[in-house]
């Protein structure tokens, strides 16, 4: 058993590159990709989360990641700032049942996750730690760019490939521009949808899909890692819908949406883990959890129970007017979870506003519901199935 790879691309942008939805960030994308490999209940012993766009730089990313994946909050999570080589390094040194999640939350955006099986299909093949920082992003948020593609091709990619002393041309070069990848890879290299951390896993997924084994390189500017990949025994699960043009939303001026951190904390496990309060006496489920059970009258006798993450729209509205610190238009829906009578109000995501109809079926996915005084407020949103009945564009329901 090799590895199980899950890949996620936001449904926005073009075939040349995806962009994030207004309610997505590196964490929500990490969850989208990782759910593809852990939803079946596979055991996870350790998590490595690699991105250069971690939402919170003072801690706080790991708990929502574990909660949304319904993994124990006792797991070790490594939060790593890194690109394509860092992900290849993390993968090849990972023990069985390690979950590696890699996210690019700037265009071209994408995320991928891999759960290492009993036998790690990657073995070290070479590395070159070199510096040619044509692009920089500093701690103060400023970024600088000195585009000289020829310099990068010659003193970056070519020199690092030579320094790594690879036996042959790699089958695929994650992290390189399409032109560099074509120049330095073996014939038939796949085109990858991202350029950063996640591109390594998109590269491996492409090899699994075409049953090709061999040398894989991952490069970030002039830093390069390489490994030998055995494709047999690995599987790929993709969540990559056809891209659509990103919706123009108007963010209205106004202060941030106020946040009570105490209220955030009380709601966290239920909201991010999508769990109802369930009465231990009569079994009634309620979201949010209730102190007083409406079924049997018991007080404070509840425990958290996972809710299905699929459901049907009971009613919906789309708000067109500007709302301070929110982005209009946006669609709300009351969604009934499949197989329960539990409903919840949530945003509709992944489709343009105003397109979801009553009765539409879909998935409940983690999204950044709002930014509230610097805190990403995560919760679940309704993502209609591709086949769900949508109303015509621009029409009122």
């Amino acid at each position, binding site marked *: 058993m090799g590895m199980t790879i899950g890949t996620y691309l936001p449904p926005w942008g073009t075939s040349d590159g995806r962009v994030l939805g207004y309610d997505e960030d590196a964490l929500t994308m990490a969850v989208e990709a990782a759910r593809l490999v852990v939803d079946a209940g596979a055991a996870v012993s350790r998590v490595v989360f690699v991105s250069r766009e971690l939402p919170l730089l003072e801690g706080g990313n790991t708990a929502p990641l574990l909660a949304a994946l319904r993994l124990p909050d006792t797991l070790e999570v490594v939060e790593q700032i890194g690109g394509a080589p860092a992900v290849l390094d993390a993968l090849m040194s990972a023990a069985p049942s390690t979950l590696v999640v890699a996210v690019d939350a700037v265009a071209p955006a994408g995320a991928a996750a891999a759960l290492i099986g009993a036998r790690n299909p990657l073995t070290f093949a070479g590395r070159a730690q070199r510096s040619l920082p044509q692009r920089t992003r500093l701690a103060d948020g400023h970024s600088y760019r000195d585009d000289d593609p020829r310099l990068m091709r010659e003193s970056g990619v070519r020199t690092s490939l030579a320094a790594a002393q690879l036996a042959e041309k790699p089958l695929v070069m994650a992290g390189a521009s399409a032109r560099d990848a074509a120049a330095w890879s073996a014939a038939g290299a796949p085109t990858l949808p991202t350029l950063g951390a996640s591109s390594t896993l998109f590269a491996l997924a492409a090899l699994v899909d075409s049953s090709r084994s061999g040398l894989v390189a991952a490069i970030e500017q002039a830093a390069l890692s390489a490994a030998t990949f055995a494709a047999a025994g690995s599987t790929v699960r993709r969540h990559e819908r056809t891209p659509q043009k990103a919706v123009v939303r108007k963010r209205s001026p106004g202060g941030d949406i106020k946040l009570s951190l105490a209220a955030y904390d009380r709601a966290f496990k239920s909201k991010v883990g999508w769990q109802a309060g369930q009465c231990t006496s009569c079994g009634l489920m309620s979201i949010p959890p209730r102190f007083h059970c409406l079924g049997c009258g018991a007080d404070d006798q509840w425990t958290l129970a996972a809710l299905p993450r699929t459901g049907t729209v009971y009613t919906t509205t789309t708000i*067109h007017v500007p709302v301070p610190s929110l982005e209009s238009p946006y669609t709300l829906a009351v969604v009934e979870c499949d197989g329960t009578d539990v409903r919840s109000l949530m945003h509709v995501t992944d489709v343009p506003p105003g397109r979801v109809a009553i009765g539409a079926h879909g998935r409940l996915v983690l999204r950044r519901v709002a930014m509230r005084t610097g805190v990403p407020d995560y919760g679940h949103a309704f993502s209609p199935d591709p086949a769900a009945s949508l109303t015509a564009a621009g029409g009122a329901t």
Partner: protein
Amino acid sequence: MRRVAIVGAGMTSFGEHFSRGIKELIPMALGEALASVDKGMDRRDIGAAWLGEVGTTDGFGAGILADSCGLLDIPVTRTENACATGQDIIRQAIYAIASGYVDVVAAVGADKVRDTSSSSTFWDWMAQTRDMAWDFPLGLLAPANFALHASRYLHEAPATREHMAMIAVKNHFHGVKNPKAQLRNEITVEQVLKAPLVAEPFGMFDCTPQSDGAATVLLVAEEHVARYTDRPVWVLGFGLGIDRVMHQHKRDMTSFTCTVKAAKAAYAMAGLGPRDIDFAEVHDCFTAVELISYEDLGFAERFCAHKLVEARDHYVGGRIPINPSGGLKSKGHPPGATGVAQCVEIFEQLRGQSHNQIDGARVGLAHNIGGPTAASGITILGKSRP
């Protein structure tokens, strides 16, 4: 328990009172109510006062009422019960009088919505009326709050957006004659349907304007009525209904459960049914709310409210005139004052003095619904002593 009658009623005009603050609107409304008392009333007769105010412009409401009206020696209480505030302060006034503790009560409703920016007013209020962790960050604005009901109602009932529009058209038609109304212009169904969308299925003309204003009714115990007037308006019944605060906990969103509960209580107390109501002031913050309320109040069979609209039964001169004042849509909606102003209209109708007089009106009903569609207040008033 003593019977209670209204002997005086008055209100400011509703609109954007940029030049007047809450400390002026409140005494204006009280002064007009006192002046409407046929045999006169000295404000020193007032034994207690309630202020219905949803926002808190300029601070502490009860004190502002006492201070601005020269009522410093009586108990004053501010009540907030979302947009049902108006009917709720009347209910509390009735409790106080019926119990025998007080003989004369001033119920004053007021709000100064336009002291905040038109774009942020309702959003500012949302911070105080939504679950902070679950609903507030979703942007569940007041129109969206009701639109979730309207979408489901249109999905299940034969009614259409045209029927909603016809309600706005009717309320503007009535409001043209009301000198206190904010929007005194007629509109057409086509204008309503073509207006920019606010929260689907509501366009701008499906929505009430934002208003400032105040209204007052003076309530008196039965044995003191004759000192003030020979043509009082009697309280026949009232009810306050509460529903679940989150939309996801409302099983049937084609109806407003709180209204059904309030109506049941009010009709039972009055010993009347919907057919006994000659006309009503129905809470039309959004057109579909009036439409759905026809059913909740028993004026129409379930999912048949549109038939009442098609027959024009809701016009003055029709079977059950609704909102002869112009309703919230035309008259305006300063939330704390809205319910009290509805009773001002009913007071004038039952005394034959309305700007839009309904022939032979003997019993009128006032209805509010508010908050997360979770509070409804109803008052039934009559010409004859119960």
